[in-house]
């Protein structure tokens, strides 16, 4: 296990380094002279030359890459052209909101997807199965921004049940300030007993989280169904059945346990996909997270900010993959030999 962990850690570090280089390349794809953009349109050629030197653009590319990697490691991710603040500060202040949204979506995904998948497997090729399978196709093929608009119009616009946009009622913040404990607003409000704020945060989170959960629900339901059906065909399950266990017990006590494996394997993938899906949802609900930041930065070509978001999300995704692999290897010794 130690050897496997070390190998897996090394590989992750290598990939992370590769992603840093990739973001460097993306930043250099911007058409035009970066020094001209930095110095402004009315800069004289001398000023531009001075900026080139300041930014290190006159040095060979490999030195620039090493400098850039060093900067990233030191926490110097550049200054956002749009907000004029260090990119890393911007990102870290927005990350908790996005994480809260994605984790809420994944939680709903598990709570709805697993029972739905079991239901479909229990009544294979019968009505529940057909319904779950159709719903899963619809859920996976819905453009997430469109689903967000539909739910926003219906629940916030027509029924006026939930707020249209934002992360909490702004006027409540003065009366019930939010203490920072974990950074996740929902958790902070809960642990500090800030009930009015908790209700507000929850109301604002519910619709976006439901939209984000559409994909995880669909994927998890399909996955659980497929792997339970796979397991049900195996001989040891047939033996359990022949011993006289009821179908409920066969499913709930024996088959489910084995079908966790594929779900766990795809956890990181679902996390990554939901994370970037939440970007589109944030844009619709004007929810202050990484996605709105990325979308705003992309439209004005704020390169340090775009590159920063890409890097941060990639690092999160690499970490998620690493954790999933290690958990998987801890549970299933066969993995360590691969």
């Amino acid at each position, binding site marked *: 296990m130690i050897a496997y962990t070390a190998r897996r850690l090394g590989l992750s570090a290598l*990939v992370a380094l590769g*992603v840093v280089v990739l973001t460097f390349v993306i930043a250099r794809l911007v058409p035009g002279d970066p020094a001209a953009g930095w110095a402004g349109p009315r800069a004289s050629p001398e000023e531009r030359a001075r900026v080139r030197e300041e930014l290190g653009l006159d040095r060979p590319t490999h030195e620039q890459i090493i400098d850039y990697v060093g900067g990233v490691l030191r926490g110097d991710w550049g200054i956002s052209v749009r907000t004029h603040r260090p990119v890393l500060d911007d990102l870290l202040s927005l990350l908790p909101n996005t994480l809260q949204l994605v984790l809420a979506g994944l939680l709903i995904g598990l709570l709805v997807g697993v029972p739905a998948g079991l239901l479909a497997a229990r009544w294979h090729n019968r009505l529940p199965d057909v319904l779950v399978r159709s719903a899963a196709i619809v859920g996976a093929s819905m*453009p997430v921004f469109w689903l967000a608009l539909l739910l926003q119009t219906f629940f916030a616009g027509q029924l006026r049940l939930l707020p249209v946009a934002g992360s909490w009622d702004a006027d409540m913040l003065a009366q019930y300030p939010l203490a920072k404990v974990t950074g996740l607003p929902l958790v902070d409000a809960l642990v500090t007993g800030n009930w009015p704020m908790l209700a507000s945060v929850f109301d604002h989170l519910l619709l976006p989280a439901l939209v984000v959960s559409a994909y995880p629900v669909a994927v998890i339901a399909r996955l659980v169904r497929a*792997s339970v059906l796979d397991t049900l065909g195996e001989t040891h399950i047939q033996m359990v059945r022949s011993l006289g266990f009821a179908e409920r017990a066969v499913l709930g006590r024996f088959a489910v346990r084995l079908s966790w494996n594929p779900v766990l394997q795809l956890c990181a993938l679902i996390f990554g996909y939901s994370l970037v899906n939440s970007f*589109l949802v944030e844009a619709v609900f004007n929810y202050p997270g990484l996605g709105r930041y990325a979308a705003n930065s*992309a439209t004005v070509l704020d390169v340090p900010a775009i*590159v920063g978001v890409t890097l941060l999300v*990639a690092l999160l*995704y690499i970490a998620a993959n690493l954790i999933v692999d290690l958990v998987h290897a801890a549970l299933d010794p066969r993995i360590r030999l691969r």
Partner: protein
Amino acid sequence: MTASPDSPASPSAAPARPSAARRTLAELRRSPAIAVAAGLLLLIALVALLAPWLAPHPEHASGATDTGQALRPPSAAHWFGTDELGRDVFSRVLYGARFGPTIALVVVVVSLLVGTVVGLVAGYFGGWIDEILMRVTDVFLAVPALLLALALAAVLPRGLVGVTIALAVTWWPWYARLVRSEAASVAGRRHIEACRALGLPHWRILLRHVLPGSVTPLLVQASTDIGGVILVASGLSFLGLGAQSPTPDWGLMVQQSQNRFMTEWWIGTFPGLAIMLVAALCYVLGDALRDRLDPRRTPRL
């Protein structure tokens, strides 16, 4: 696929080789899902092709406006209503079939070609070539697809070409990894060694003896992926990073209707439905193909 959109079983669809055509038809009859999904997708392709003749107001797809007819709800004259510039939403949705689905098709084909070459070389030759190529692939796969495409589309020139390049750069690693694992599994087999011993050139062994094993999983994956690419491409359009106004791209149409969604629901609802329909058909087709051609493989989502 020899099915024609109106009647999958029509004999006119049969080319010169009746036996192959009959086999395909028999295959389609056994799996109606494939026939229906492929038929509907072909129908959509036909709509894209014939949009100038099918659309009641083809001029509304290319910048013409009719402000006297602005914001009309769906009616007999305007099936899907009109937008704030009085453009017929139905015509624009029909024309939209020319953008998102075409981008997706081009992206998947280009990614297939690049990914297959990289995967074949890595899997067949192995060693340090494999190691380098697969680590590069890992780096691309470490950034979730939508985000990598977003970053690339942001720095590339705005427009359809920029999005297509951004998405192709994002998508090829999936195929590279798939082909690589298939190629690596056959590379050590006896018949490949025999080919080498006979002195066949590498490219010939790769094309004739290694590649065929990957065709089925590639086909299944590609048909599902067209749906995935359409969703990501429409997301980029929605963020303003894809097609630019007045292109009747579905994602862009939803974005432009965003502020009116609560009052004039029809402007954004129909383009969104179109995206969903195409993506769902691709998923159904991919699923059915997998069941039919590759039953032992559990779904990879």
